[in-house]
C-alpha cells in the first residue's frame, strides 16, 4: 500500500518549506546570541585591558588593571579572605546542601509522615524573595534572639549584624542563611527525579529482598546522579559569581570578613563605570581558573554516569 502524501506537495518542496520555517524562527535568537553572548564576551576580554576615565572615556591600558589586581587585591589579606569565603560557602552548600537535599528528597519520595507539608514548606524559600527572607532573618537573629538571651540568661549579646560586631560570627550567620535557603529547590528537583524512576525496578528489587539501604544505594542514587552532577557543575560555575546574600545583608558596606569574590565583582559594577574594566579583568582571571576545573569535573562526573 502506498504511504499517503501531504496535500499538494512533494518531499522536496516539503523539505524546502521545513528549512525556510526553521531558518525564519532561528535567525533572530541567533543574532541575539552573536551580539549578547559572543559580542559581550569578546568585549569583556577587550575591557580587561582598558580603563575608564570620566573625561576621556574608555582607553587602552594594558597595565592598570593588572597592577590593580596584583597590588590592590592579591597582596592584601582582604582578597584572600574573599577567596576563602567563596570556597567555604561552596563547600558548605555542596556538602551539607547536597546531603540534606538527597535525604529530604528521599523522605518525600517515600511519602513518609508529613511529606506533603514538607514539600510545600521546602518550596517557600524559592518563592519568597531573598531580600524578604533576609529582613526576617536579620531582625529575628539580630534583634529577637539577643533580646531573649538577655531576658533568659542575663547575658548582653550584641546584634551580630551591626558593623561593630564580630565579623566571624556575622559571616557564619550569613553562610548558615545561604545554606538554609539554598538547597530547598535542589530537594524538590531530586524528589521529582525520584518520582520518575520506573516502579518495576523498585518492585524487582523488593522481590529480590533488597533492604531500604540497598534500594537507595543501588537504584535511587544512580538514577538521581545526573541531576546531582548538574548541581555540582553549575555550583562550580557560580563559584566566583555568587555573592551569597552578602549584598542583601550588608549592602555596599560589607567588611573584608563578609565579602566574597562574587560580591566584589558585583559591587565593582554597582559603583559605576570606573569599576567596569576592573570587573572585566577580575572576571577574566576567574574564568581562566574555572574553565579547566569545570571541564575536568564534568568529564569525571560523566564517566561516573556511564
Amino acid at each position, binding site marked *: 500500500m502506498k504511504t499517503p502524501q*501531504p496535500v499538494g506537495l512533494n518531499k522536496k518542496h516539503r523539505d524546502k*518549506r521545513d528549512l525556510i520555517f*526553521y531558518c525564519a*524562527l532561528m535567525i533572530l535568537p541567533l543574532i*541575539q*546570541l552573536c*551580539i*549578547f553572548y559572543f*559580542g*559581550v564576551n569578546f568585549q*569583556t576580554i577587550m575591557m580587561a585591558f582598558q580603563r575608564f576615565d570620566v573625561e576621556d572615556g574608555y582607553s587602552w591600558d594594558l597595565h592598570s588593571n593588572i597592577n590593580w589586581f596584583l597590588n590592590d587585591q592579591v597582596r592584601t589579606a582582604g582578597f584572600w579572605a574573599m577567596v576563602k569565603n567563596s570556597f567555604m560557602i561552596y563547600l558548605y552548600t555542596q556538602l551539607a546542601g547536597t546531603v540534606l537535599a538527597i*535525604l529530604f528528597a*528521599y*523522605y518525600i519520595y*517515600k*511519602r*513518609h*509522615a508529613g511529606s506533603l507539608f*514538607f514539600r510545600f*514548606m521546602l518550596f517557600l524559600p*524559592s*518563592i519568597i*524573595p531573598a*531580600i*524578604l527572607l533576609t*529582613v*526576617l*532573618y536579620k*531582625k*529575628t537573629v539580630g*534583634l*529577637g534572639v539577643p533580646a531573649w538571651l538577655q*531576658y533568659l540568661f542575663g547575658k548582653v549579646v550584641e546584634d551580630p549584624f551591626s558593623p561593630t560586631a564580630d565579623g566571624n560570627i556575622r559571616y557564619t550567620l550569613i553562610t548558615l542563611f545561604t545554606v538554609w535557603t539554598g538547597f530547598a529547590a535542589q530537594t524538590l*528537583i531530586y524528589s*521529582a527525579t525520584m*518520582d*520518575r524512576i*520506573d*516502579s518495576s525496578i*523498585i518492585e524487582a528489587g523488593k522481590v529480590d529482598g533488597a533492604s531500604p539501604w540497598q534500594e537507595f544505594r543501588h537504584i535511587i542514587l544512580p538514577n538521581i546522579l*545526573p*541531576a546531582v*552532577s*548538574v548541581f555540582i*557543575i553549575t555550583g562550580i*560555575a557560580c563559584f*566566583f559569581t555568587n555573592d551569597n546574600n552578602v*549584598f542583601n545583608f550588608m*549592602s555596599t558596606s560589607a567588611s573584608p570578613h563578609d565579602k566574597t569574590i562574587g560580591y566584589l565583582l558585583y559591587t565593582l*559594577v*554597582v559603583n559605576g563605570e570606573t569599576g567596569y574594566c576592573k*570587573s*572585566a579583568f*577580575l*572576571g577574566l582571571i*576567574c*574564568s581562566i581558573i*574555572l*574553565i579547566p576545573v*569545570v571541564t575536568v569535573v564534568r568529564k569525571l562526573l560523566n564517566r561516573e554516569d556511564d
Partner: protein
Amino acid sequence: MARKLKPKREKAGVIGVLTGILLVIYVLGLLFPALWSLVSSFTERFSYFNFYNDRIFTNGPAFKFTTDNYKIARECMMITADETSITYNILGMYIHSVLYSVICAGVWVLVTSVVSYLVARFDYKFSKIVYNFVVITMCIPIVGGLASELRMLQRLGIYGTWFSMGVLKFNFLGVYFLTFVAMFKAIPKEYTEAAKIDGASNLRIMLSIIFPQALNMIVTVFLLTFITYWNDYKTAMLYLPKYPVATYGVFYFLNTPMNNGTTSEAPVQVAGAILMTLPILIVFIIFNKRLRGGVYVGGIKG
C-alpha cells in the same frame, strides 16, 4: 515510557525518623523568623523599640497590636529615580515589577520554547550544534560579563529601557532549554506526520498541535521564571535605574533612613518588606499546585 512510581507510604526506619526530625527543625527554622517578624510588624513600635534597645522584659513582653507600621511603611516607601527625578510609590514599584517580570520571563520562555521545539523536532545537524552549544554554555563559566553587557546596551543606545530587557532576554540559554527539548522529543512524531498529510503548515503544526500539548510545562516554567525575576532586584537595579522595582524598594527601605529615622525601626521595616512582597506571595498561593508540579532535571551531556 517509564511508569510513574507512586509508592505507598512506607514505615520510616531509623534514617527516615532522623530525616523527619531534621525536616521538622528545618521547617521550624523557616517558620520561626516568619512568625516572629509578622508579630513584630503588628507590634506598637515604641513598645517594640524599648523591648529591644533596653533589652527589657521588666514590664513584661511589650506587645501592643497596631497596624500603624504598615501605614507608615506605605506612606514612606517612595523612591525618586536619579535620572528622571520622578518619585514612585508602592503602586508604581508594583507596576515596574510586573512589567519587568512579564517582559523578561515572557520573552525568554517564548524564545526558549520555540528554539527548543526546532531543535527537538527538526533533525538537522545544526540542531545538534545548538543543543551542544547550550550544554557547553551551562558548563563553561564566563565571569565578569555584567559590565560588558551594560556597556553593550549603552553602545546600542537602548540602556535603561524596557525594550532593552526584551532584547537581553531574547535568548534560549539555560537549563529549561534542555527540559523543553526533552519534552518536545517525547511527543510522538506521528502527530506531525498526520498533520502534514492533511496539509497543515509548519507554523500551524507548532502552534495548534505541539504547543498545546506542552502548554502545562511552558506555563509552569513561565511562572517559575516570573517569580525569579520578581525577586531579583540586583539585575533590575543595574539595568533599569529609572524604574525601581518592588524588591529594590525593600532593599532601599532597609538601607535608607526616612521620616526622621522612623523607617529604620524594625517593625516598620518588616511591615514594608511584607507589603512589597505581598503580590508574589499571592501568586504563589494561587498557583502553588502547578508550581510544585515537578520540573525535573536530567544530566548535562554534550
